[in-house]
């Protein structure tokens, strides 16, 4: 049985990193299309997917299975941001989203690093 595969925290962090990197892509897509007429902004609602995987009284392996099979979807905003060229991107909003996503990625990477350090310590201290 591998240790990392059954570690819920580790898997949750890895999955949220997956979601965050997809959101970063969506923000980059919005920024790339800032001058595209009629473009609708894209987003990834990965928090909902993670929460749904964790919700309810489930056993550890069950949560892990739901987590691993969770897929993130890119959603398109229905409301067009009404600019006179019908572009759908608010540059300030995207800048804020990018900053938030970057901070979250850093937080998740820090936590992952700590987790890995913990395992490393266990491996080193356990033996000779």
């Amino acid at each position, binding site marked *: 049985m591998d240790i990392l595969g059954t570690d819920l925290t580790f898997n949750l962090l890895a999955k949220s*990193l*997956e979601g965050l*990197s*997809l959101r*970063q*892509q*969506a*923000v*980059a*897509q919005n*920024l*790339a*299309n*800032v*001058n*595209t*007429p009629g*473009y609708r902004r*894209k987003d990834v609602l990965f928090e909902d997917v993670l929460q749904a995987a964790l919700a309810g009284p489930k056993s550890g392996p069950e949560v892990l299975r739901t987590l691993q099979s969770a897929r993130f*979807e*890119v959603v*398109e905003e229905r409301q067009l941001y009404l600019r006179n060229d019908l572009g759908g991107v608010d*540059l300030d909003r*995207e*800048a804020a989203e*990018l900053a938030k*996503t*970057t901070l979250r*990625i*850093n937080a998740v*990477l820090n936590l*992952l*690093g700590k987790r*890995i350090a913990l395992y*490393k310590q266990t491996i080193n201290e356990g033996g000779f």
Partner: protein
Amino acid sequence: MGLLGTLNIAASGMTAERMWMDTISSNIANANTTRTADGTPFRRQLVVFAERAGVQGLGGVQVSGVVDDMSELRLVYEPSHPDANADGYVAYPNVNVVTEMVDLIAASRAYEANVTAFEAAKAAYMRTLSLLQV
């Protein structure tokens, strides 16, 4: 795709905005060109941006075409000009330098926005790589 996908998307945006800036430069440079290769006065050129579909609709942006602005040419009375018509009017390009300058600012800001996304993705990727240094 992952984090590298963001780099591709931001790069596509940078390419498209640079293309727009190139077109704006060409418009300004030809603001007084009355004779192009086919003998007609220069017409202002516009770039058309189109979303590029990729994995889950995240493929960045592309310039789907550069089209001529078909608005009225600027007529100036200059009878001695070699390109003057029978009434003595010369058709100058429909380029307004002020409009071009405003577009240039928009293009350069949009370029910067893409650079910011690029740098954010690069920093995240570098940090992820450093997790591997055990």
